[in-house]
């Protein structure tokens, strides 16, 4: 016998605003389930914790893992920043920011320093993160060993046994073939001296920012239904060899707009002749620096 809604229940429901969403879209039980996976992930840095990922109102591969993590941790007083490619005004970032403004009614910002939670696709902001902030990464393929071993059953066993020879062989083969480690983004890292982890498709320029970072870093993969984490002040080492040490990208010229020499630059073609201009990919960082330069005497 299935329980039936009582008249009282019906009245109570009718009293609510029928078109409003539960805070941050997901129901409370789902948020609890996600938080449990987040806690497990934080307790075992770099371990991919499975979670019962839900279908979200956007396509898989577009940040469904990231928005589920954000929805589970958002508080009413939190200020949210969302970036894609370092920029606050790319389509994915605009849509996700608008989504949370609508379903959670939270304040949003483009200023890195102001944000409590920063959801990102493919970049870490240039301004150093601080304690109390949380980075939420959108992750397409959580498994760093996937390109070497397509089977999930196999890769889970490899992590359990700390069997990372295949990854080192891959890096060695890069050097043998190309003379250098030929991975420029999604560059594998070792977290807390235990788990090899995918940093999500960040350019390797951002890898050093993850090491001993004061902010909590959470990674959500919706389609693959995995959550992993780096707690604050945790060791994150980019894999390399003593004679071929890890190096990040660098540019010979400063940003053409703000003059920064320490930021990740995008190459922009400015005319039909193929003239190039190099500018910061972090729009908040670049805009702030340019404004300071203008206001300086």
């Amino acid at each position, binding site marked *: 016998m*299935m*329980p*039936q*809604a009582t008249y009282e*229940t019906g009245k109570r429901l009718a009293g609510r605003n029928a078109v409003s969403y*539960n805070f941050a879209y997901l*129901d*409370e*039980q*789902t948020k609890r389930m996600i938080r449990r996976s987040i806690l497990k992930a934080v307790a075992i840095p770099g371990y991919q914790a*499975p*979670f*019962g*990922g*839900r*279908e979200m109102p956007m*396509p*898989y*591969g*577009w940040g*469904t893992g990231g928005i589920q993590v954000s929805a589970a941790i958002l508080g009413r007083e939190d200020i949210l920043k969302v970036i*894609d*490619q*370092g920029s606050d005004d*790319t*389509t*994915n970032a605009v849509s996700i920011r608008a989504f949370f403004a609508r379903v959670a009614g939270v304040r949003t910002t483009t200023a890195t320093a102001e944000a409590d939670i920063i959801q990102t*696709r*493919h*970049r870490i902001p240039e301004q150093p993160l601080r304690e109390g902030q949380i980075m939420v990464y959108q992750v*397409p393929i959580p498994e760093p060993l996937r390109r070497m071993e397509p*089977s*999930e*059953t196999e890769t889970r066993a490899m992590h359990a046994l700390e069997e990372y020879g295949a990854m080192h062989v891959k890096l060695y083969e890069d050097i043998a073939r*190309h*003379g*250098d480690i*030929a991975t*420029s*983004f*999604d560059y594998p890292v070792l977290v807390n001296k235990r788990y090899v982890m995918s940093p999500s*498709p960040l*350019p*390797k*320029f951002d890898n050093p920012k993850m090491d001993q970072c004061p902010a909590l870093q959470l990674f959500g993969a919706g*389609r693959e*239904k*995995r959550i992993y984490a780096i707690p604050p002040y945790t060791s994150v080492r980019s894999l390399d060899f003593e004679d071929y040490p890890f190096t990040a*990208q660098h540019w010979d010229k400063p940003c053409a707009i703000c003059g920064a020499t320490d930021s*990740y*630059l*995008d*190459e922009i073609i400015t005319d039909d002749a193929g003239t190039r201009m190099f500018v910061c*990919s972090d729009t908040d960082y670049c805009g702030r620096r340019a404004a300071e330069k203008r206001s300086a005497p």
Partner: protein
Amino acid sequence: MAAPAEDAAQNNAEVPPDEEGDAFTGVCPKVLGFLEKEGLLPPEAGEDVFPGDLTRQPLELPAGRDIRLQNLARADEGVLLALAYSTQRGFGSTHPFTGEMRMGEVEVFFTPEELGFPVLVGEVTLTECESVNQFTGGKGRPASFTRGYGLVFGESERKAVSMAIVDRALRAGEFDEEERGPAQNAEFVLYHSDNVEASGFVQHIKLPHYVDFQAELALVRALRGKSEKDRNDAASDI
């Protein structure tokens, strides 16, 4: 052309007319039940087996048949069709007989997490296919047929029969069959058949990737510069 028509007329004549003259609405026993009673077909898991829920728990491998069937019911029709076809052509080996092919309406209940009680949200049409496949047995076990099962949304016999074939193919391990094709590999089939997942991930390529592309561009330029320098150095050594 005349002979088949005559056959059909004769067959129709043998069907006893319904008392009301209406469509049959009583309980219709399943054909496979008769084979089951004879011991020619092993019974399916009973109702006391509580199935997992793929919409609430992540897929974990090895997956039980309950989870595999849920995954296949959600799978893309084209994927199932191609996989089923591949086993018929020899990548795996299934060429089933159809034991049952039927269609009907079922009520759908939904339990909102916040309410905690089920609500009837409507009726959906389902198509079901039960297939009878090559027999197993030997080594002291009596010979018996095996089953494949398909249950899909809507009026879709093509998807139902495809699902039944793929379900049977995925039972290869259970019957000690050699794995000879992708349709028999549960990880391959289950992870790649959900069209909502596949469609989203393939089309995310439309999103900007310029930061990563910049990284690749810088890398390829550097590698080309390095190999050019190596070539020049080698040339000057001679």
